[in-house]
């Protein structure tokens, strides 16, 4: 039964001193799907991500990965199991080259990360794989560029490549297109589509255009709770979803005007 779901949460709750940020969330992410988590600002999307990767500790509830309870595991252990996340603000190592960024991720599986006596050249055998990953996101020519000098869109691409270097089974992407212009968004959509082959993806995304193009299934969060779940056509037709995105019923007139424009 749980085999078809890569990730499941059961009654996940996070309270901050009386404020319920995540309220009884039950997610089921099917294997191979690109699953979107959408909702207005403050709906708790990023908090859910932080709970799944244990950057925050859930108040109650369970998290299951491939049917196994991973609720007590720590962040680093979860990453090693194959759930790797990206961040809302581009998460790179700014003063390392693009190649070194990826190499640090590849190093996790090398068992040499504590070897302080080994020479740096012992890492060169990973360079080939780094180049392949860089090439897959169109960054091969920037391999030796310090990351801080890369344009924003390229940093995000590098971040994705670094995440993929971990060979994750489940990819958690927190707003991969945030702060990007039209062309960059298209290229990220392509990258995510490529990256999702043979993997499962859960992504937080504001850009509904991206969601409609990419995602197999959508969960809408509002005020910490699941409002609805379904395919894009179902969800987008749901009046409650329109309401949380556009404002309350009282504001409906304004909202309608806005949509008309």
């Amino acid at each position, binding site marked *: 039964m749980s085999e078809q779901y890569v990730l499941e949460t059961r009654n996940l709750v996070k309270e901050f001193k009386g404020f319920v940020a995540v309220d009884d969330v039950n997610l089921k992410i099917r294997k191979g799907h690109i699953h979107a988590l959408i909702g207005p600002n403050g709906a708790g999307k990023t908090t859910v991500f932080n709970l799944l990767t244990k950057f925050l500790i859930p108040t109650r509830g369970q998290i299951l990965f491939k049917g196994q309870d991973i609720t007590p595991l720590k962040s680093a252990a979860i990453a090693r199991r194959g759930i790797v996340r990206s961040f809302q603000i581009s998460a790179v190592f700014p003063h390392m080259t693009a190649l070194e960024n990826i190499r640090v991720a590849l190093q996790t599986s090398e068992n040499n990360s504590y070897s302080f006596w*080994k020479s740096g050249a012992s890492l060169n055998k990973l360079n080939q794989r780094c180049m392949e990953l860089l090439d897959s996101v169109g960054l091969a020519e920037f391999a*030796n560029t310090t990351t801080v000098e890369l344009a924003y869109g390229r940093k995000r691409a590098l971040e994705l490549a670094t995440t993929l270097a971990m060979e994750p089974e489940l990819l958690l992407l927190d707003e991969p297109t945030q702060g990007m212009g039209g062309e960059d968004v298209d290229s990220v959509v392509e990258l995510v589509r490529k990256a999702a082959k043979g993997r499962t993806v859960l992504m937080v995304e504001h850009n509904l255009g991206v969601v409609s193009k990419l995602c197999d299934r959508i969960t809408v969060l509002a005020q910490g709770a699941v409002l609805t779940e379904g395919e894009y056509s179902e969800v987008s037709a749901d009046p409650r979803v329109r309401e949380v995105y556009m404002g309350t019923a009282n504001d409906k007139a304004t909202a309608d005007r806005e949509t008309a424009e």
Partner: protein
Amino acid sequence: MTQPVNQTEIQKAILEQQSADNRKKMILNGVLLLLLLAAPFAMYPVFLMKILCFALFAVAFNLLFGFTGLLSFGHAAFLAAGGYTTGYLLSNFSGLTTELGIIAGTVAATVLGLGFALLSIRRQGIYFAMVTLALSQLVFFFLVQSEFTGGEDGMHGIPRGHLFGLVDLSDNYNLYYFVLAVFLGCYLLVQRIVSSPYGQVLKAIKQNEPRAISLGYNVNRYKVLAFVISAALAGLAGSLKSVVFQLASLNDAHWHMSGEVILMTLVGGMGTLLGPVVGATFVVNIEYQLSQGPLRDWVDPILGGIFVITVLAFRSGIVGEIQKFVKKNLG
């Protein structure tokens, strides 16, 4: 978006740059070695040894501060742990050769460092600094109160002894070359650590800790290891110092000393290999020159002023600024 590029060529270019960097490092190391080998013929060896001891202390501190991003405000405790342990053993067990006393001092500082690390590593930023400060104050009071340390007076007349039971270290030149060998060994070790696979992880942790966690690194363990290595080398500096001056004093354990090593590292250039060496040389020289002249009562305010100017105007320190200049104008 991008033209197809030749991966092999880029890789080759990267390897070439690596070996060019290595060559530069070797040349710089060679120059440093020659300078230090010749130095005792131009200057008083004991003064040079003082510089080397503080340089080693600052190099050790910089491994944690500059390369891992952890500001410890308790490193004086390790300097003192090394110095007092070595001093006590060499004073009380005449059969012990000098190098064994020094090794024992280093081990003591290592163990103390592990204790400090386990208690403080979960805290961040200012809290980390405060925990390490509090722990080092505990060590200070322990050293004041204990009988065997000589309390307020410290330990005097620590015998320098014979290296391996053979080389007479009461000769300043012999001792200088021994201290130099230890210093260079440690300097090269830190150089190696920084570029090692482990050093890459430290770099990553320093630059973006949440990201390093999300890549599966158990960052606290890496930090503990860095802390322990740093404490060990700081302890070694203290052990050497107690042999050089035949003295272990409370000055070494005082929080002033923890502050001074921060000053040395910042002035020289944190996060650079040579920075702490240059910084220690600079600070020890300034202190000495000033204490000889009419400004002898003004040493602390003047050092304080230098500290402020460095932090405000030359944040990358002497070596850092030179590196920037070279990169801009020659690279």
